[in-house]
């Protein structure tokens, strides 16, 4: 039996034809191209690069970008549904698409010059260029303003020095959108090419999470780049944070995909697995877990869809995204752990999806604003008092 995720509230009725078609085509792609290979790639700790060209042909890299730059001008709800389906496959695959779309194409589209947009966006949309996004540093995670990477203006060039860490796609990227402080302490965005002298991107190994995803350090040692590689229209820290809002929005949808995947697996397994002479689905403890999972899934789905509609009306705020990223990813992490347990000993193998999703969600809970930081963003919104600002 193929994958048939629960649609408890008949959310299908709330989607338009275009949204349903692109969700279905992405689902089919994941069924045919991702599911057969993903456990092996995950175990081998490799990213399935063969998927990049296929995703590009599907038109799902940076789908919200205007057509003249190679995008499809799709709605944010459509982008969310794409993330949902990709993450049902694996968080590594969704992470690739999030970074390429929201963290590389988005800043070039929003803050780049016309020349930069024409140069990079069509190649990024068609998968000819792979991008990564460098904001986080070894000692600057939740507090990005404390970054130490520096950009010094030298005539018609900028000189970059410093290091970034936990950078998805880093070692396989052709270009990096890098954020660094100038001499006055203002944060600026730059496009660094992998061939630039003094730039290197060693891969970070030994992850027990997001194994089917490339994670890297970016090192800048007197990297001299032409001044026209700076993104001209940034406004300090606000600009990278705007990118993150876009990516986090997609992640909240991705978590829905994880909940759909693990609930689907839990229902099938518990109906088939016989213990004490009957399916484990007939035990109250199992039914309670299924009921909780279905509730978490349905709530996450409705919330993501509402925020998607707000985004399409231009009314989405960063705190809306904080609420769904925080809620949905946490629900997916706890849900995947719950299903891992329901599967008993079978649940510790990669034959089943739960443990892979469970391990992945540990990263997703932490990256793109930790669960805790999103809690404090909501706290700040509700009280007007920031609990984490150092100003």
């Amino acid at each position, binding site marked *: *039996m*193929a994958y*048939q995720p629960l649609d408890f509230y008949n959310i299908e009725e709330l989607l338009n*034809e*275009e949204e*349903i*078609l*692109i969700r*279905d*085509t992405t689902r*089919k*792609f994941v069924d045919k191209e991702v599911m057969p290979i993903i456990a092996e790639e995950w175990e081998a700790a490799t990213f399935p690069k063969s998927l990049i060209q296929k995703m590009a*042909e*599907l*038109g*799902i890299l940076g*789908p919200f970008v205007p*057509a003249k730059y190679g995008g*499809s*001008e*799709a709605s944010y709800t*459509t982008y969310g549904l*794409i993330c949902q389906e990709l993450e049902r496959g694996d968080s590594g695959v969704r992470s690739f698409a999030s970074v390429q779309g929201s963290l590389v194409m988005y800043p070039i589209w929003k803050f780049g010059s016309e020349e930069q947009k024409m140069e990079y966006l069509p190649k990024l949309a068609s998968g000819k260029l792979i991008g990564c996004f460098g904001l986080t540093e070894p000692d600057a995670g939740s507090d990005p303003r404390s970054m130490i990477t520096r950009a010094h203006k030298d005539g018609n060039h900028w000189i970059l020095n410093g290091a970034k860490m936990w950078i998805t796609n880093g070692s396989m990227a052709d270009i990096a959108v890098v954020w660094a402080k100038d001499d006055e302490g203002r944060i600026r965005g730059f496009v660094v090419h992998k061939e630039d002298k003094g730039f290197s991107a060693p891969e970070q190994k030994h992850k027990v999470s997001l194994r089917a995803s490339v994670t890297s350090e970016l090192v800048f040692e007197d990297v001299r780049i032409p001044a026209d590689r700076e993104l001209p229209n940034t406004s300090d820290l606000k600009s990278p944070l705007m990118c993150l809002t876009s990516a986090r929005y997609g992640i909240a949808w991705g978590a829905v995909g994880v909940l759909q995947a693990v609930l689907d697996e839990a229902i099938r397994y518990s109906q088939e697995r016989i213990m004490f002479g009957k399916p484990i689905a007939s035990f109250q403890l199992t039914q309670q877990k299924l009921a909780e999972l279905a509730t978490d899934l349905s709530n996450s789905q409705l919330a993501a869809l509402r925020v998607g509609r707000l985004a399409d009306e231009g009314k989405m705020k960063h705190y809306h995204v904080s609420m769904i990223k925080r809620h949905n990813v946490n629900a997916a992490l706890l849900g995947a752990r719950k299903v891992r347990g329901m599967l008993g000993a079978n649940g510790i193998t990669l034959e089943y999806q739960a443990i892979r999703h469970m391990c992945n969600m540990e990263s997703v809970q932490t990256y793109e604003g930790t669960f805790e930081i999103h809690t404090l963003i909501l706290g700040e919104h509700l009280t007007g008092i920031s609990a984490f600002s150092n100003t």
Partner: protein
Amino acid sequence: MKIIVLLKRVPDTEAKILINQEGTGIREDGVKFVINPHDEYGIEEGLKLREKLADGSKVTVVCAGPEEATEAIRTALAMGADDAVHVCDPKLADPNPFTVSEVLAKAIQAEGFDVIFCGKQAIDDDLAQVQSILAEKLDIPQVNNATAFEMAADCRSAKLSRRIEGGDEKIETSMPAIISCDKGLNEPRYASLPGIMKAKKKEIRKKSLADLGIAEVPGTGRSRVLKWLPLPKGGECRIVAAEETVDAVRELARLLREEAKVI
């Protein structure tokens, strides 16, 4: 060249099918409907032919089906078909193959055609009749279950293969012809996001029976479905057990011979 591809909307292969209470059809609530998977091979072959010819040829989808078939038609347009004709009429509520073929023939004649591709059968009723009746009505050759297709340079004939028991059959046919397509013919493309966005602007021409000049629903009364019934529940399962496996096998063989009388 005018390339026609036929499309039927069917329940997803993986859908759980339940018969409605009256026994007149299936329960459609909660069932996902898709393009008949065999028809996807036909659509892909039509698109490939258009791309190969690259001479302004058009691929037109023709579908006779309910209002809800629009989604399946839109998917075919998103795959790359140029436009579509959708025959949709309340009188077609319970069609049989003869009815459908008559309607499709009229619609296709109105469009004009140089080649017609369709699936080898619909996966819901598995009747596999429409292509043959249609071939008779349009008075053109048919090649069924094609696994390879190659149009001649002058577009007046085509070479095909079809899988038969233990081998392949090579066929040559004159054009125009109707080709029913089998798995192996091609790998249907995905409906891409840009394709889906473009499909929104493509034309679906809705036609009623009256538009096609059909006054009475043809073919009714030739055969009709009396009732739909669920499969009978499986019989009771008996487990033949014995201390030694060989004894169990002996007992099983005896039961199959003497009681079930199947060996």
